[in-house]
């Protein structure tokens, strides 16, 4: 899972906003519900699911420049529906939001875009694939070969992505449970992108290469009422294995993870198998956020320290959160991305 839902609260009526993260635990009403056992179909499921309340196309990348400097990149398109239907023109209840960021060891550039659906300003088409908002786009003949662009007032990027492995379904065939009470979402990833392209930063253009991870998720009521925030990890180890894991912080914490072998073989891991403990907290934007973690998955012999590359990777967007690249040391080495929400 990734718990990037929070930014979506912004687009919900104020009642949800006032409830904070618990807003995502409110009843789904007339919206469609994720169903276990429902087979995902591609490329159709790369496109939007307007009957569900929320959905996202979420890409993060770890990259290096010619001098070995590490960089992180984020490109996200959120869809939020005021009502479970589609429509053309201003009347559509479908709203869109984009977040883009580039993280360097000493800087974090952020941009945000908002748009109404129905008029062509933002949207997603499954085949040939195109996800866009304003001048930002993720586009290609299919999901295996993409061009990714975004720009803000002080940065821009234009990179190409090529998949070197299969899609990965989380949970049971893409049905990912989020709480003991059974809240769930449809969730799959493409964690095997190779990336090359150019970042435009205040100091000039920087050619970069690296890896990227795309998350696709949609739901209508993804959280339980008591869940207040989450810590989400996507880790790529040097040996080619990958780990997605999250902790949903509630009355009792709920964890879930997926072990992804180098060949794409995915193994879902139940509540409690994955553990993440904060080691160091860092003051950013007036809050204390854990930016160094001890992450363990005893079943696979993983016991690593996950450290933020830039602890100030704060997303100062309509609803703020922390999102940035991390480095991995300990039983395994590697890089990855960390997202933390609900640190008010």
């Amino acid at each position, binding site marked *: 899972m990734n718990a990037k839902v929070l930014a979506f609260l912004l*687009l919900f009526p104020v009642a949800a906003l006032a409830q904070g993260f618990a807003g995502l635990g409110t009843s789904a009403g007339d919206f469609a519900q994720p169903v276990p056992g429902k087979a995902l179909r591609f490329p159709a499921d790369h496109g939007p699911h307007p009957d569900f309340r929320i959905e996202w196309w979420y890409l993060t990348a770890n990259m290096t420049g010619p001098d070995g400097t590490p960089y992180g990149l984020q490109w996200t398109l959120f869809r939020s529906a005021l009502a479970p239907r589609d429509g053309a023109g201003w009347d559509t209840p479908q709203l869109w939001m984009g977040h883009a960021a580039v993280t360097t060891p000493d800087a974090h550039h952020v941009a945000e875009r908002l748009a109404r659906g129905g008029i062509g300003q933002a949207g997603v088409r499954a085949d040939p694939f195109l996800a866009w908002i*304003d001048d930002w786009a993720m586009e290609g003949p299919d999901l295996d070969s993409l061009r990714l662009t975004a720009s803000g*007032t002080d940065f821009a990027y234009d990179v190409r992505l090529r998949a070197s492995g299969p899609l990965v379904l989380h949970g049971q065939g893409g049905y990912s449970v989020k709480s003991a009470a059974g809240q769930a979402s449809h969730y799959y990833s493409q964690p095997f992108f190779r990336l090359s392209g150019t970042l435009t930063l205040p100091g000039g253009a920087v050619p970069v290469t690296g890896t990227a991870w795309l998350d696709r998720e949609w739901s209508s009521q993804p959280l339980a009422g008591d869940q207040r925030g989450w810590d989400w990890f996507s880790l790529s180890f040097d040996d080619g294995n990958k780990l997605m894991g999250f902790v949903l912080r509630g009355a009792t914490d709920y964890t879930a993870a997926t072990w992804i072998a180098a060949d794409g073989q995915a193994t879902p891991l139940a509540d409690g198998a994955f553990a993440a403990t904060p080691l160091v907290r860092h003051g950013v934007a007036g809050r204390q956020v854990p930016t160094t973690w001890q992450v363990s998955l005893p079943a696979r012999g993983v016991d690593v320290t996950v450290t933020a590359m830039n602890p100030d990777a704060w997303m100062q967007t309509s609803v703020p959160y922390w999102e940035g690249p991390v480095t991995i040391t300990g039983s395994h080495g590697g890089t990855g991305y960390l997202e933390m929400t609900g640190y008010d």
Partner: protein
Amino acid sequence: MTGAILSALASHWRRNPLQLLTLLVGLALATALWSGVQAINAEARASYGAAAATLGEGRFAQITAKGGGAIPQHIYVALRRAGWMVSPVVEGRLGPVRIIGLEPLTAPGDLVPVSPASGADLGAFLSAPGQVFARKETLARLHDTGAQRIVAPNVAPGTAVTDIGLAQRLLDRPGQIDRLIVLAGQPLSRRPLAEVSPGLTLVSPRGDSDLSRLTDSFHLNLTAFGLLSFAVGLFIVHGAIGLAFEQRRPMVRTLRALGAPLRRLVALMAVELAVLALVAGMIGVALGYVVAAALLPDVAATLRGLYGAEVSGQMTFRPVWWLSGLAIALAGTAVAASGALWSLARMPLLGGAHARALGMSRRQGRQSAAAGLLLAVAAVLAIRGQGLLAGFAMLAALLIGGALALPPVLALLLAGAERRARAPVAQWFWADTRQQVPGLSLALMALMLAMAANVGVSTMVSSFRLTFVGFLDQRLAAELYVRVEDPAQADAIAAVAARHADAILPRPSVDRPVAGMPAQIMGLRDHATYRDNWRLLRAVPDVWDRLARGEGALINEQMYRRAGLDLGAGIPLGQASGRPDATLPVLGIYGDYGNPVGQVVLAEGLFRDLFPDAAVQQFGLRVDPGRVQALRDRLRTEAGVAEGAMIDQAAVKAASLAIFERTFTVTAALNVLTLAVAGFAILMSLLTLAAMRLPQLAPVWALGLTRRRLAALDLLRALVLAALTGALALPLGLALAWALLAIVNVEAFGWRLPMYLFPLDYLRLGMLTLLAAAIAALWPAWRLSRTPPAQLLGVFRHER
């Protein structure tokens, strides 16, 4: 002890209810006029602010279609996808209400009533049936749209804000956008505007101070009026308090003899006055609200017509008025009472009540000296003073000095008349009139100030009208003016005009700072239109020939005053034109009323040499007035000129004149109100004097003058005094007008209004003054005519 003092103090008002009434009504009227004018000003300013905030015109650049007209919605999407951070706006009228459709997700946060950050219900705004935000009075006029109505006092008057989707449906303009707001933060790179859509043009932010600068002049005039009205009211209050304290001197002496401490006595009297001031202040603010509500529609119409400023015709009650109204009432009372309290505090315990006659004459002497001093200060300030503050100080010195000088001058005039009178009744009449001047002096001063204020303000408003209309005649000498969007359109306009107009006067211009101030530099074609119509304030000989030969330039009055460039001085155009040696002498200076920036006018050829890249921004077209409409139609159809880009001289003039009629309505209403206040002061003074005068009238009655005759003489006396006061007020009023036009206006706005005289207006004002005095004197005279003879006889029975 305190209770005893209070009850003694209160007993005075119980025995003199009329005095209490005078005090309260005088103060209430003064506060009413002051707070009414302030309310009008505040309401107008709030409206400008709301308009700027609703439209975002002041702060944001905009993209519009060249030649006006709608922008298709897909162009908006194309711009967004090309990296332009723009937000669409659609506008139109739905019956009496202007509808503005905004897109809340892309609009600048504070422009939309339900911006994502504001915590409002975005879902309800976007989803059917939608929401409409407007002021309460606007919502009342809005047709039923099916949408939820939400009261929003911050939205501009007469305007309703809603989602763009709903607005397009209500206005029946699906897929159409009128303009795009360009947001402050734009991404690193975006495709050029012309590449995305060639039919668009980027307009720089207008700067929200323009409108308020233009309207400042109008508001300054109103403020001056309000201040003068308040001064008139203060004279009444001063009179009433002075009289009350005078009559309470024996009581104060008795109280002190009985052991009341002086401090507590003075403190209690101050508290008493403060309570009265608060009561009167509250009545005054409420009355001011009525005055403002009555006048605001006219003021709103004036501002709308004159400057295009949309002002709500409805009053909203703001708490700050209550506070400022009460504060000014308290301050006014404090000023009016300080002298009386001071003299009470210094009153010798055993001295008592009778040393006042002597004091009176001594006070007269002091008053004359003060008047002379103040008038001298005013004269010095008028000649030497600099700055707005000095201007206002000069006004204050002039008015107070003039008012203080009134009683001595009146006494002098009446003494002269008395010497010339031969018949005994006439001699008695003049002597008795002179004897009454001290008692009436405060009321007469109030009348004089009212009359002077009216003369001053009428002169200013009328001068403004004459100047402005004359200015329009000069500056809009051509029958039709056309604003040009781009060079291609300029060619098209020239082609149409060549066939259908008698003369074409192109106006190329650039906006560049000159001599450190923002300015517009224009090229002018040598044509009889300018030679015949432009009147220059100052000029060298053969100015037009020399201008045509490129030997120099004309500048507007603002540049002459602010940059200090007199005839013959060099205008540094080097920086503006990119040619370092370009300096041109000033050949002439012209009036340019209401324009906030400087202007430099060059011959067309010289302008093109200095600014080869400048485009023609405007054409003046000469054509027979009867064919203006036909030419407009051709320009619209053949050259694609938007209707709003053409200014028709006749239409502008008609509109301006209509506006001035509105201004006069407001001025006339304020005239009548101030004179009514002064009339009230006279009435109160006469009523107070009536009782005291009986001992003086009784002997004359006993000598054979009937009560009717006496009453008629009293009425005549009031008229004579009013006429003399009015005659003396005229020069004071003209001095006031001169100060407003030649000092305050220049200091505040950089241009001087020429002063014109309007004898008929003054005559009318004089008649109004006499009327006010006559009405005020009528009742006391009638009461005198009905005085029972027994009462008159009683005078002889009592021992004095």
